[in-house]
């Protein structure tokens, strides 16, 4: 593993480690952005209006039970004949990544909006805030911690599943694992595994840092204590089912 990582030949060229990391990040961030664009507004809408709550629990559970490998391979076989060249496997991979990232963001955004102190909303209403202003100034900032924790689990899920997508010839760090397996090169597989794990850890910590920076300090000081006893039932961390 050490030899593999410190061999300069593995750090340049079209299948060098920097290229693989770049590809992995590109696919992951595109999928995360698309998932957030779908899930955040929908979660806010459901949280504020209370419409479609039944969708939330069912969707999250059903998607968790779907095996991502099976889904990935099924979509590749369905979609790839319709697209020439690389799009045939990039598109299904992105669809699966988005599909897996939507539920954690959606459920956490919904839960975040729901968990906003009703007294705070009432107070804002009493002060003459309009609905939109209540949303942007009260409900959204207050639901930010939960929303971001949803984004965090979604990104982990994506990074993990993007690794698996190497099997259906997507680029990224998963290549080292899958090609290493094909070539019986265990050191290459371990190098890939270490890099993927480091990438996931780095982005997890980065998002934790961002969460600390953007969430209002007044909010965290209060919720740290108040949220502890009830946290168990509704914020069971979404597992990386990949």
């Amino acid at each position: 593993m050490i030899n593999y990582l410190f061999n300069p030949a593995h750090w340049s060229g079209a299948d060098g480690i920097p290229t693989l990391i770049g590809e992995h990040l590109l696919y992951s961030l595109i999928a995360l952005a698309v998932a957030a664009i779908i899930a955040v507004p929908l979660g806010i809408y459901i949280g504020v209006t209370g419409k479609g709550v039944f969708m939330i629990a069912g969707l999250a559970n059903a998607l968790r039970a779907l095996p991502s490998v099976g889904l990935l391979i099924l979509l590749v076989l369905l979609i790839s004949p319709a697209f020439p060249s690389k799009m045939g496997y990039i598109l299904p991979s992105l669809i699966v990544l988005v599909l897996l990232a939507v539920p954690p963001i959606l459920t956490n955004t919904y839960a975040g909006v729901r968990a906003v102190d009703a007294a705070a909303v009432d107070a804002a209403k009493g002060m003459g805030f309009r609905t939109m202003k209540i949303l942007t100034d009260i409900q959204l900032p207050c639901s930010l911690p939960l929303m971001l924790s949803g984004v965090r689990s979604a990104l982990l899920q994506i990074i993990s599943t993007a690794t698996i997508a190497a099997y259906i010839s997507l680029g990224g760090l998963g290549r080292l694992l899958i090609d290493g397996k094909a070539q019986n090169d265990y050191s290459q597989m371990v190098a890939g595994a270490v890099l993927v794990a480091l990438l996931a850890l780095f982005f997890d910590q980065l998002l934790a840092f961002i969460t600390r920076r953007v969430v209002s300090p007044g909010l965290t000081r209060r919720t740290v204590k108040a949220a502890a006893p009830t946290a168990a039932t509704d914020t069971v961390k979404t597992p990386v089912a990949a």
Partner: protein
Amino acid sequence: MNFEWLGRQSDNIVFLLGWHVLLAVTPLILGLLIALPLGWWAHRSRRIYPLLVGVAGLLYTVPSLALFVLLPLVLGTKILDPLNIVAALTIYTVALLVRVVADALDSVPEDTVQAAKAMGYRGYQSLVKVELPVGVPVISAGLRVAAVSNVSLVSVAALLGIPQLGSLFTQGFQLRFFTPIIAGIILCVVLAMILDGLIILLNRWLTPWTPKVVAS
């Protein structure tokens, strides 16, 4: 769907299903057994809680395929050894459940604990006969999440060539053949739902005092 193929392959599919159940359920039981004392420890000590939950969170971030590949280095096993999968999923289950168990014990009302004490229950008696049973609904909610995600995670091991239902996916991919893939997905989802249902039933059986309407 090619049902004739399914009929011919039924022996093999049952074999794969058996392995899948074994690889998904063993880590669930092992993980719960390890998480109970750790969770109790985190519940007792405010200093240990953030430490254990932090380490659990870090372990959780490691992608499954990476963990399957790295564990042989730690365990000294072969890459194709199913033990790697059991160990990896046990790690995920423990990582998920440590916090759940600690929070479950935290959720037991103080009045209940004091009532138990007043009735003469000693520390461990109160834990086993009062606090754990009261915490069962929270623990089983966490266990359901772990069970369902374990079933899905086991299929990733097919990429390394370890036989279970995921092998139907790789087989279908190599043959460009939909039948095994669809059969595999359906069996995985049904298996996840059965495990989920069993835990719900177990929860109801262990907590006869709760109202019969159980959410979700």
